[in-house]
C-alpha cells in the first residue's frame, strides 16, 4: 500500500463558497469539506447537495478530498458524498465498531452503483470521546477502509471529559496514547499531535503550527490539519524533512552499508552509533522525503493545469 502524504489539511464548512472556491489554491495535501459541526442544522440538506460539485474543485490543486459527515445522518451524507474523486469519508465522534461497519457497507453500496472500485474510499474513524477511546481497538479493526487511526484529544474530547482546553499540561496523554498504540498495533498509519504548552487556541498562528509540525515529525507523526489557510505552509514545511536531515540520513545509510560490508553489527559516524536501528530510521526519512517531493510535484502540476482551465465556481 503506498503511503499517503497528508502533511496539511484544511477543514471548512462546505456551504461557504468563498472558502470552497479558493480551497484548491491553498497548496493543501488534503481538503476536508465539512457537513458536520460548522454547518448549521438549517443548511444540512443544502450542504449535502454541494458535495458532488465540490470534489472536482478540491482535486484541482492536487489535494486529496475528504468530507466529514454527521453521526445523525450517515445514510444521507454518504449517499451525497460517495462519488468518484472522493478520497475519504470521516465519521466524527465514533464510539462503536458497529457504526464503522455500517458506514463501510453504505460506502460499498454507492461505490458499486457509481462505478468506483470497492474499497477505494477510505474511512476516518474520528475518536473524540472516552467511549471511543475505550472501544478504539475494535473500531480501528472494524473495516479495512480505516487506513489511519488516531485521536483522543481536542474540543469534543475535552467536552466529553469535562476538562478545560489550554490548561498548561496535556490532559490527553492516556487517550491520545491509547489511540496511537492501537494504530501501531494494527499496523495502521497514525496521526498524533504533540502537546505544546504555549497553545493559545489560535487557529491561524503560523509559527506555532510550524513548531508543532516539527515536533510531531520528530515524534513519528506524518499528518497535519487545520482550520485556517495560514497554517498550510508551516504544516507542509514542518512535516517535510529539511535537506540537511536528508543528507545526514544518506550519510548514515552509506556508513551502515560500510559496516555491513565489514561484517559488523555496528559502527560509528562522527560520534553517532550506526546500527540497523539508525539505518532503518534513515531509510524511512529518505523514503518520506521522496514521497513529500512527489506530492509537491503532483500538486504543482495540477495547479498549473488548473490555472489554464478553471471550472465554474459553485453557486450560492
Amino acid at each position, binding site marked *: 500500500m503506498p503511503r499517503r502524504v497528508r502533511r496539511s489539511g484544511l477543514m471548512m*464548512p462546505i*456551504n*461557504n463558497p468563498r472558502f470552497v472556491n479558493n480551497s484548491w489554491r491553498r497548496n493543501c495535501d488534503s481538503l476536508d469539506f465539512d457537513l*458536520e*459541526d*460548522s*454547518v*448549521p*442544522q*438549517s*443548511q444540512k440538506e443544502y450542504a449535502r447537495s454541494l458535495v458532488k460539485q465540490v470534489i472536482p474543485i478540491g482535486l484541482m490543486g492536487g489535494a486529496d478530498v475528504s468530507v466529514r459527515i454527521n453521526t445523525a445522518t450517515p445514510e444521507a451524507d454518504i449517499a451525497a458524498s460517495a462519488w468518484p474523486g472522493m478520497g475519504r469519508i470521516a465519521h466524527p465522534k465514533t464510539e462503536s465498531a458497529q457504526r464503522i461497519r455500517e458506514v463501510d457497507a453504505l460506502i460499498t453500496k454507492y461505490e458499486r452503483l457509481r462505478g468506483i472500485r470497492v474499497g477505494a474510499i477510505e474511512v476516518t474513524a474520528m475518536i473524540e*470521546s*472516552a*467511549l471511543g*477511546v*475505550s472501544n478504539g481497538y475494535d473500531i480501528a479493526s472494524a473495516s479495512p477502509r480505516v487506513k489511519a487511526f488516531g485521536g483522543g484529544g481536542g*474540543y*469534543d474530547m*475535552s*467536552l*466529553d*471529559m*469535562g*476538562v*478545560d482546553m489550554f*490548561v498548561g*499540561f496535556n*490532559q490527553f*496523554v*492516556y*487517550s491520545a*496514547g*491509547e489511540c496511537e498504540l492501537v494504530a501501531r498495533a494494527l499496523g495502521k498509519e497514525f496521526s498524533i499531535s504533540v502537546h505544546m504548552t504555549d497553545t*493559545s*487556541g*489560535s*487557529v*491561524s*498562528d503560523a509559527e506555532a503550527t510550524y513548531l508543532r509540525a516539527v515536533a510531531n515529525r520528530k515524534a513519528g507523526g506524518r499528518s497535519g490539519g487545520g*482550520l485556517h489557510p495560514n497554517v498550510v505552509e508551516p504544516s507542509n514545511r514542518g512535516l517535510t524533512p529539511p535537506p540537511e536531515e536528508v543528507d545526514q540520513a544518506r550519510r548514515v545509510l552509506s556508513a551502515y552499508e560500510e559496516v555491513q560490508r565489514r561484517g559488523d553489527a555496528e559502527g560509528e559516524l562522527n560520534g553517532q552509533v550506526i546500527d540497523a536501528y539508525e539505518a532503518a530510521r534513515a531509510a524511512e526519512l529518505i523514503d518520506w522525503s521522496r514521497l513529500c517531493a512527489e506530492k509537491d510535484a503532483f500538486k504543482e502540476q495540477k495547479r498549473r493545469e488548473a490555472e489554464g482551465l478553471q471550472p465554474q465556481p459553485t453557486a450560492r
Partner: protein
Amino acid sequence: MNPFVRRSHLQISVLNQEEVLSSWKHKADAIVLDITDGAGLAARQQARELVRGSIAPASKGGGEVLVRISKEALFADVKAALWPGVKGIICPSLETAADVRELDEALLEAEKEHGIPRGSTEVLVLLDSGKGIWNVREIIAASSRLSTVGLEESSLYRHMEIMPDASFDPLVYAKGRIIVEAVAAKVHPIGVAHPYGIMPGFDNPQEIHRLALRGKNMGFKGAICLHPSWVEPCNRAYAPAADQIDYFKTVRATFAEAVARGTAATPYPGTTQMIDVPVDERARIMLELWEMVQSREADKASALSKAAE
C-alpha cells in the same frame, strides 16, 4: 448514572467521635465514615457499632454519608455498617467483576435486613493494584450501583514497589485509564493531581486548590479529602469557576447569533478562538453543571441553617 455533584468526600475515622460530631460543619458534599482506621478486631467491631449513631450528626450539614469498608471483611462490614441514611459504600482493593458482584450480594442482604430500598446503595471503588486497574472496565460494568472509581495511591505504590517522589507522577497511565473508562461508562472518576494523591499536604489551601483543579482538568470529578482543609478548595476546583460563567454565556450567545446568520463556526469576540458546536455544547453543559452546583450548595446551606437553630 444520572449526573450528580459530589466534589468533596471528607473522610474521617468513625472511632474519632469528636471529629464525627463536627464533621457536618465543613460543608463537604459527602462525609466518609471510615471503619477501617483502627487496629485489630476489637477496634473494627467498635467502629462498626459506631456507624449507626454517626449518620445523623454527619449528615446535619446536608452532606451525603458514605461508609468505607475493607475487602477482607467485606460481608461483615457491610452487614454491620449499612443503615438507612448511608448513601454508599467505599471499598478499596477490588480487582475483578466477581469482587464487585460479591459486594453487590452483601449489599442486597443488608438492604433487605435493614429496610433499605433494594439496589439503592451506591458503590465507590478505590483501585490499588495493577490487576484492578487493568480490569477497570469490567469492574465498572459489573454493577449498576457503581457510581465512582478512584485510586488508593498509597497501596498502589506498595503493590508496584514504587518509591514516592514528588517530582514526577508514575501513575499517569493508571489515572488516564480509570478516567477514560469511568467517563465512557458515565460514572465519576475521583482523584487529585500528583503529588497530593500520595504525599498530601493539609495546610496550604492554594496548593490544594491548584492540584485539585489540575485533577479536574485531567477529568476527575471530585476527591477524597483526608482533612477538612481540603473541602473548600475541592468544592471550588471541581465546579465551573465563577469567572468562567460569563465566558460560557458569551459563547452561547455568540454561537446562537452565528447560527441565525447561517454559519456554525464563528470566532469568540475579540479573539481568533473558534466557537463551533462542541465549544457551544461545552458551554451549555458547564452552565448546567453550574446550576446543579448552585442547587447542591443551596441544599447544604438550608441544612446548615437548620442545624444551627
